[in-house]
C-alpha cells in the first residue's frame, strides 16, 4: 500500500491553487468578502515583513536568535483569523503570524529573541498564550484551558499549534486522548512543515498525520497549508464545531519551512535546494496576489500603499527593538512568586547590597 507522507495527497483541502485560481470544496465552503481578501493579503505581507526584518536584525546582532516563519504565513494567518474574541491560542515559538492576528505587538515577540523578556504580552488580553519552547508542552495546557471553557459554559474554543516533530511527543498524544474523552472544545493545528530541525517527516510518522485523529476519536483534516483561504475555512469550521460542543479536531496544515529552523541552523546540511525550489512555486503570498490581480480586486495604489506600510512597520521594529529597555533585576526577584517568599526576598536584599557596594566604590 502506498503511504503518502511527503506529497499533498488527494484529500488535501484547497480553495486557492498555487496559480491563484479559486476552487470550490463542498465540505469547506468559504464566504469571504473582497475586503477580507485584501485584509488577508495584507496580513500575509506584513507577517512576512516582520519575519524578514527579524532575520536581518538577528544577523546584525540585535537578536540572539530568530525562528523564521517564512513559508508558513498562510497556515498561521488562516488559523489566526478564524479565531474570535474569547478564543485562546496556544503557540509554539514560531507562531509569529498567529501573534500578529491576535494583536500582539511584533516588538513583544522580538523581545523574546532579544532576551528582554520570556513572556512579553498578556495571554488573557490577546487570547494568545505565551510562546512555549519545550516541544509539545502547550498541548495538554490547551486542553486544560478548553476544559475550563467547558466548565464555564463559554461558547469559545482553544486552538493549539504544534509541528510535525511535536507529533511524536507524549504530551501531544496524551492531549489528544484528554481532548477526546472530555470532549473538550480544542482544535489541534499541526503545521507539518516537513522538517523538525534536520529530521524529515519520515522519522516522525508512517501515516499522514491528520489520519491519526481518527484513532483518538475525533476528525482529522489535511489542508493545503500554503492556501490561506483553505486554512481559514477549515479552521473556522473546526473551531465553530468545537464551540458548539462537538469536540476536538485535528487540522494538519501541509506546508514547508522555507527558512532554516532558526538562525542558528544550516539546512543545506540535510535537504536539497531542489525541494525548496519546488515549494517556492507554491508560495502562500503569490497565489493571493495573483488572485487579487486577476479578479481586479486591487490596483497599483493598493500594492504601493502596502509596500509603504510594510517599510514603515520594518522601520518601527528596527527603532523600537534598539530602544527596548533591558529588564530589571528587581522584576526578576519580584516575579518569581506571586506571594512573598523569604528566600527570594533575602537573596534580593543581599544582591542589592552587593550592587550598592559598587555605587559607593564608584562614588566621586
Amino acid at each position, binding site marked *: 500500500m502506498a503511504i503518502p507522507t511527503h506529497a499533498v495527497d488527494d484529500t488535501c483541502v484547497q480553495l486557492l491553487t498555487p496559480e491563484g485560481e479559486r476552487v470550490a470544496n463542498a465540505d469547506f465552503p468559504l464566504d469571504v468578502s473582497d475586503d477580507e481578501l485584501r485584509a488577508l493579503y495584507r496580513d500575509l505581507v506584513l507577517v512576512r515583513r516582520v519575519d524578514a526584518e527579524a532575520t536581518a536584525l538577528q544577523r546584525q546582532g540585535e537578536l540572539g536568535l530568530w525562528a523564521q516563519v517564512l513559508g508558513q504565513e498562510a497556515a498561521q494567518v488562516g488559523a489566526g483569523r478564524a479565531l474570535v474574541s474569547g478564543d*485562546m491560542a496556544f503557540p509554539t515559538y514560531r507562531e509569529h503570524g498567529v501573534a500578529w492576528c491576535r494583536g500582539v505587538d511584533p516588538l513583544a515577540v522580538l523581545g523574546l529573541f532579544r532576551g528582554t523578556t520570556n513572556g512579553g504580552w498578556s495571554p488573557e488580553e490577546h487570547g494568545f498564550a505565551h510562546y512555549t519552547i519545550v516541544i509539545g508542552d502547550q498541548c495538554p495546557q490547551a486542553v486544560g*484551558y478548553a476544559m*475550563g471553557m467547558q466548565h464555564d459554559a463559554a461558547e469559545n474554543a482553544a486552538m493549539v499549534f504544534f509541528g510535525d516533530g511535536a507529533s511524536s511527543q507524549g504530551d501531544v498524544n496524551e492531549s489528544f486522548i484528554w481532548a477526546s474523552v472530555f470532549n473538550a472544545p480544542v482544535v489541534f493545528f499541526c503545521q507539518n512543515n516537513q522538517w523538525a530541525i534536520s529530521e524529515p517527516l519520515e522519522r516522525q510518522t508512517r501515516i499522514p498525520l491528520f489520519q491519526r485523529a481518527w484513532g483518538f476519536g475525533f476528525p482529522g483534516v489535511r489542508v493545503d497549508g500554503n492556501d490561506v483561504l483553505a486554512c481559514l475555512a477549515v479552521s473556522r469550521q473546526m473551531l465553530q464545531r468545537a464551540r458548539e460542543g462537538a469536540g476536538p479536531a485535528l487540522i494538519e496544515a501541509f506546508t514547508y519551512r522555507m527558512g532554516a529552523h532558526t538562525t542558528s541552523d544550516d539546512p543545506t546540511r540535510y535537504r536539497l535546494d531542489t525541494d525548496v525550489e519546488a515549494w517556492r512555486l507554491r508560495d502562500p503570498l503569490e497565489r493571493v496576489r495573483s488572485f487579487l490581480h486577476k479578479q481586479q480586486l486591487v490596483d497599483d495604489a493598493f500594492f504601493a500603499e502596502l509596500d509603504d506600510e510594510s517599510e514603515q512597520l520594518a522601520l518601527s521594529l528596527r527603532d523600537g527593538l534598539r530602544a527596548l529597555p533591558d529588564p530589571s533585576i528587581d522584576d526578576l526577584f519580584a516575579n*518569581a512568586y*506571586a506571594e512573598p*517568599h523569604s*528566600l527570594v526576598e533575602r537573596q534580593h536584599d543581599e544582591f542589592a547590597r552587593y550592587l550598592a557596594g559598587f555605587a559607593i566604590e564608584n562614588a566621586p
Partner: protein
Amino acid sequence: MTETLTMGRAINQGLRCALERDPKTLLMGEDIGRLGGVFRVTDGLQKDFGEQRVIDTPLAESSILGAAIGLAMRGYRPVVEIQFDGLVYVAFDQIVSQLAKMHARSAGRVRMPVTVRHPYGGGIGAVEHHSESPEAYFAHTAGLRVVTPSNPVDAFHLVQQAIASDDPVVFLEPKRRYWDKAEVDVGSAPGLPMGSARVVRSGTDVTLVSYGPMVRTCLEAAAAAEGDGTSIEVVDLRSLAPLDLKTVIDSVRRTGRCVVAHEASVFLGMSAEVAASVTEECFYELESPVLRVGGFHTPYPPSRLEHHYLPDLDRVLDAVDRSLAY
C-alpha cells in the same frame, strides 16, 4: 468541632473545606473519584461535589499537570493528585518547565494556584517506585513551594493553605503516617502560616531537625534519649521551600548542636541545605558540625531491606551521640 482523625482523613476534610469555600477549586487525578484514591484521601468527595469538580483523569501524569496549568490560566484552582511518588517524574517536565516558571515568564500576569499532592516516603512494604522521597527536586526548583505535614492537625490546615496560595505548591503526604491519629479541630484557624517551621519538642542539648514521616521517629528518639539524660529539641520544618531558617537557627543558637534527619538520600538532600545554612548563620555558636541522617546513595531498596535504608530511632540517636561526643 474536635474530631479524632487520621492524617488521610484530615487531608480529606481539608480538601472538603477547600471545595466548599471556592467553586473554582477542582480536584483531578487517577482513581480519585469513585474509588476515593488508592489511599482513600479523596473518599466521598466526588459523590458530594460531582464529576465536574472531582475528576478522574486518563492515566497520563504529564497531562494531569498540563491540564491543571491550562485550568489555572482559565481562572481555576486545580488540586491534582499524583498517585505515588515514583510516578511524579512522568509529570516532571510540566512541573519544572511550565508550572514553576509561568508566573515569572508572564511577569506576574499569569498566576498558577495549582496544588500537586502526592504520597511520599517508604515504610509500607511497597513495590519499586512507591517509596521514594523526591522533595529535593521540587525544593530546588525556583517557582515552586514545597510543604509536608507530619501530623493530622498540620495536614488539615496545610492542605488548605497550599490550595489557597496563588503560587504552585507541592504538597507531600507522608504515606506511612496516613493512619496516625490526632484530635483535629476542623473549625479552627491554622496556628501558623504555611511557610513556618515549628518546635514540636523543646530541649537544650541538641537540635534535631526533620519533616514529614521522620518527625514521629525523631520525637520517639527524643523521648528515648530523655531517659539517658539527653535533652533533644525537635524542629518540624513543615515547609521545605522556602525554609523557615529562623526557627532552626534560633534553636541551634540555644543548643549549639544540630542533626538533620530525613528518608531521602542525604547527598544534596534537604539536610545539606539546612547544614549549610546553619553553618553560615551559627558558626560561632556551634559546638560540633551539623550531622545528617538519611537514605543511602542507592536506589530505594526492595522492601525487605527498607528498614536498613530508612533512618530509625537508633540511627537518629547514633547521630545525636556523635554530635554530643564531638
